[in-house]
């Protein structure tokens, strides 16, 4: 039975979940959307971020989100290094999409093994004061475990959007995908710009990872679940559009939540990918993508 309360709660749950999905997808939106780098290992980086949050939360009692922010610069550096390798091996020679894809598949497995060797295969969780709390606004529940990640995710996504549209480097990043030569003529080094962008993309994984482990338990191979969802969001939203990614993430989150509440949770996945297929068939550039 569809009551107003159930409906409202389903939408709110979906929005909260969607915000989190956006945090996970924004890194891929930059890498794939802006730079054409098929970084299928992005969810693995997110899981690595989760483990970083776990490690410092467990050892020093630091809040996981704080840990995410603290290790983001490290992830940035790692991203820059990986991009360098990627550039040297693939981008210079052309045919990068396919080979880059295989390269990142390899990175994905290596990352997973590294996590297993370091932390074992057990599920890990973090401690934070807001896990378990719940705010009620009228008939609508806002579990803090979802609300706090939502707020952080939204802040991060907005910050990235502002960075890309307002700063010189940010706009250079947007430009480099569209017109390398013009960018060079303007005095910016495209390779450094791309390196910067990819580092930024991986840095978002650190924060997204901290959010992931707040929402639920994490083990090294859990990234695989998110590969499909993340690509679906980026493509649905439109390549190269951060706002598109956000909207697509909300759509996915709400669709999942609605299906889970009213139709039976076992169909959630199909709904998400059904939407994606329809989008690809009807409007391949996505919701906000440029034609």
């Amino acid at each position, binding site marked *: 039975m569809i009551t107003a309360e159930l409906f409202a709660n389903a939408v709110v749950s979906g929005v909260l979940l969607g915000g989190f999905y956006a945090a996970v997808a924004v890194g891929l939106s930059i890498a794939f959307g802006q730079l054409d780098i098929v970084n299928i290992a992005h969810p693995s980086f997110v899981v690595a971020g989760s483990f970083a949050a776990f490690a410092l939360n467990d050892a020093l009692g630091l809040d996981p989100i704080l840990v995410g922010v603290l290790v983001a610069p490290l992830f940035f550096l790692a991203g820059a290094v990986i991009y360098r390798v990627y550039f040297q*091996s693939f981008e210079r020679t052309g045919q990068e999409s396919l080979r880059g894809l*295989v390269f990142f598949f390899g*990175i994905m497995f290596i990352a997973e*093994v590294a996590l297993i060797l370091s932390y074992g295969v057990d599920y890990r969780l973090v401690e934070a004061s807001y896990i378990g709390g719940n705010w009620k606004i009228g008939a609508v529940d806002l579990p803090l475990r979802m609300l706090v990640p939502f707020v952080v995710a939204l802040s991060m996504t907005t910050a990235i959007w502002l960075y890309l549209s307002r700063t010189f480097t940010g706009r250079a990043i947007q430009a480099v995908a569209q017109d390398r030569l013009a960018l060079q003529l303007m005095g910016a080094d495209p390779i450094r710009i791309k390196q910067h962008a990819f580092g930024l993309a991986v840095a978002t994984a650190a924060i997204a990872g901290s959010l992931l482990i707040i929402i639920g338990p994490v083990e090294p191979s859990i990234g695989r679940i998110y590969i499909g969802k993340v*690509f679906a969001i980026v493509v649905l939203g439109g390549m190269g559009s951060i706002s598109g990614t956000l909207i697509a993430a909300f759509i996915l989150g709400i669709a999942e939540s609605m299906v889970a509440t009213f139709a039976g949770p076992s169909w959630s*996945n*199909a709904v998400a*990918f059904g939407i994606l297929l329809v989008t*690809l068939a009807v409007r391949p550039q996505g919701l906000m993508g440029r034609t």
Partner: protein
Amino acid sequence: MSREVAFWASLAAVLAAGLWFTGSYDNEYYFNFAYAVLQGVVMAIAWNILGGFAGYVNFGSAGFFAVGAYTAIALSKLAALPMVVLIVAAGLVCGLIGLAIGLLTLRLRGVYFAIATLAVAIVFETLIDNWEFVGGAGGTYIIPPATAWFFDSYVEYLFFVMLALAVVATAVSRIMNRSRLGRGLAAIREDEVAAECAGVPTLQLKLIATTAMGVLMGFAGAPYGFYATYVDPVSAFSLLIAVNAIAMPMIGGTEMWLGPIIGALLLGSAQKIATVTISSELNLLIVGAALVAFITFAPRGIVGLVGSLWNRRR
């Protein structure tokens, strides 16, 4: 002896050798091992028809494989049909899916196509998850008979079946590679717009490629239930199957029909050997490191590497 005759003779020799092996050796494990490697060969060859020849990356190979497997399982639950029938049926179903994907995604290029294939695989996985007749998400059991045909054990029979499928796939792939069809696909791979302008019937060729890929992957999946005895959507739609289908041709070399075979034999054997020697999370490391190393240092695969070494020597 012309190259043509040599090729067909070698295929016949391979089949004969396979038969000889089943007659001379009893140890089931080796046939088990060989089956798994040959399955990889068929998948790699199939993937390469669309991915290597035409340049369209299929992310959802596991979807075709699993649908092939489940088609065979579903039919065998209805009646005790011979394996040949199951294989043909699986090939038909997956071929149709391949055709459908070709039609649906005719406007998509490059990575969009790859994402679409992934989405299709996930949709099929969800459908099978909810299909009670084949066990749904809980999986299903197949209890194979102890022997079949004149073979000493069922595993030997499965090995021979997969060997025959590998031979078929090789023949199909080579024929396509060396024909006008192959040249047309290569033109699409290099520059689709230019190819269209030059009069290449790109849509037709792409549809042939996706259908052929679908059929062969369906073939590869059909005996799976009888090999693994327990099948569930998670293992049938496994990410590793999809990754291997891409990695094996890339490692072997995508431009020639021989590349996927070499890549599959190497990577497949390495993985199976690692399972019973190192046997731990390091198995994953082998896959990962092999992918990174080959793709970085041997971009045209082993075939390309051998080719350039050969050229240098001249």
